[in-house]
């Protein structure tokens, strides 16, 4: 990062030593020592400022990261105590288990169902509210509202909306003359239902990102396209989209990482079922570690997940970001 443009406060000792430099060599030497002292005081102060953060990161981020690697090489008892060194056996067991691949493909499906649609919906809403018409403040607030909905409350609401016999969604379907859908208990529908709820829940955040991206595009560009007689759709795809591509890129990276980590809605709505159709990787880790108390296997799986997320993020930065147009 750009550490060179720092703006550092020269220590108060400097001005002192400037005054004193006229009065003899010994005094100058004393002042140099004093300056050195303030300099080392500044260093001490810096470390003291960083100490609280470093202590917490050390205890609850770096230490557990190393411990995850350590645990992944062992079998553990239900108390989490290491029982036996097994080398890479945990990883072999995971890569040989069908459940791992099921959860991997489920996770990918979940990402495909939630990320592109979520971003497209956010772009649509942002485009609709990016103008100077009356009442936009209200619409902007409405579209940001899902941000206040947490995974716990959101899941409870949708659980009721999805109710198979009395739920209002199936009632609406019946008005359209359609058969009721077993939203959460039909293996074909369960993932779609969880995805739909997730898109709604994340809409507020994505919308705010997209709107601020569009507001960052200068007005002159729009005015000049208007003079050129470019139609709204053409302007949108040729001008707006490339100009908001940094925001688009940021949102997609954050959304993909977020989708990899989805857990709450699945734990509440489907518990990974029916027949594992919504069993995503994090849910599988949770099951292994905290339901079956196999902390070693759980840690190994978490590390695999970490590797996948890391690879995908690197990929996004290396290849996709090239298409991003930075102003």
């Amino acid at each position, binding site marked *: *990062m750009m*550490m060179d443009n*720092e*703006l550092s*406060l020269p*220590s108060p000792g400097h001005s002192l030593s400037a005054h004193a430099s006229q009065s003899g060599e010994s005094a100058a030497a004393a002042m140099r020592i004093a300056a050195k002292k303030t300099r080392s005081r*500044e*260093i001490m102060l*810096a*470390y003291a*400022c*960083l100490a*609280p*953060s*470093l*202590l917490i*990161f050390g*205890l*609850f981020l770096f*230490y*557990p990261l190393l*411990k*995850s690697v350590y*645990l992944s090489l062992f079998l553990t008892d239900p108390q989490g105590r290491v029982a036996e060194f097994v080398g890479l056996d945990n990883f072999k067991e995971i890569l040989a288990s069908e459940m791992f691949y099921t959860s991997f493909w489920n996770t990918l499906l979940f990402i495909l169902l939630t990320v592109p649609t979520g971003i497209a919906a956010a772009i649509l*809403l942002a485009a*609709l509210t*990016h*103008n100077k018409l009356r009442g936009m403040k209200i619409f902007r607030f409405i579209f940001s509202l899902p941000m*206040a909905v*947490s995974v*716990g*409350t*959101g899941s*409870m*609401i*949708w659980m*009721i909306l999805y109710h198979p*016999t009395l739920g209002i969604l199936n*009632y609406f379907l019946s008005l359209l003359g359609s058969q009721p859908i077993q939203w959460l208990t039909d293996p074909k529908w369960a993932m779609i239902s969880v995805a739909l709820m997730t898109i709604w829940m994340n809409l507020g955040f994505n919308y*705010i990102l997209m709107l601020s*991206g569009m507001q960052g595009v200068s007005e002159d560009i729009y005015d000049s396209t*208007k003079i050129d007689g470019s139609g709204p*759709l053409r*302007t*949108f795809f040729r001008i*707006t989209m490339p100009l908001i591509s*940094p*925001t688009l*890129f*940021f*949102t997609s990276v954050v959304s993909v990482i977020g989708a*990899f*980590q989805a857990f*709450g809605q699945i734990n509440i709505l489907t518990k990974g079922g029916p027949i594992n159709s919504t069993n995503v990787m*994090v849910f599988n880790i949770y099951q292994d570690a905290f339901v079956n108390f196999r*902390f070693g296997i759980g840690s190994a799986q*978490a590390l695999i*997940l*970490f590797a996948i*997320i890391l690879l995908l993020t690197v990929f996004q930065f290396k290849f996709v970001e090239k298409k991003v147009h930075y102003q």
Partner: protein
Amino acid sequence: MNMRLMPKSFIYTALLLCSLAVLFPLLYTLSTSLMSEAESAVYPPPLLPEAINLSNFAKVIDTIPVLTFIGNSLIVSIAIMLGQIVTASLAAYAFAFLRFPGKTLLFSLFLATMMIPWEVIMIPNYLTVKSLNWLDTYQGLIVPFLATAFGTFLLRQTFLQLPKELFEAARVDGCGHVRTFLSMVLPLSIPGIATLGVYSFLNNWNMYLWPLLTTNRVEMRTVQIGIGMLQFEEMNSWNLILSGVLLLLLPSLLLLALGLKPLVRGITAGALKG
């Protein structure tokens, strides 16, 4: 889309339809939470209550300890938020204004923490908290989250944008680092700190997996975990479940209404600098 080139009526129709779709789950929650039990059990489901019925809220508070959950979530969220503001502003001050060896390395280390997904460290953290006997305690819910790389980064950017001349003047007046930090940098950075505060509070309020793992006793549950109790205690009365949901939603709705502006500003700064 460049909406100025489209007819107004088209935009307003689209906006109304979209609002209805986005708001529907929340409006349904509000409407059902005001119904009587008989009304909410009718099929086809009525869209609006016949009469405003506030007794559900009292009944929910009697059935499950909603207020305890809200209290716990408030304690945990506010403690983490304040803690993060303290640790992040101290670290950000060091990164923005102090010279010390290892600065670039330490700053990269801070940024690297943002890459570690929570799932990877959750198992060892659970074991740590367990061995400290911190399960079912506030410190178990709070302490692991007291530092934030994102917040440090955000505040460092805020501090660096403050006018340089001010600090030069202060230095000439013999103002030391501690006083500069407390009486100049912090007060001038209140917008940035507010952004971090709102962001942090909403995140903490919505935390799900960690409290699920580390709390068992009902008295220690937070909102997100406690809400699951509605499912078991009152599965058949939707009016009660949804009035509970509404009560638990209120604090974050309120905060969003008040804090949307600083939040948007902060997110925008973060996203555009990507």
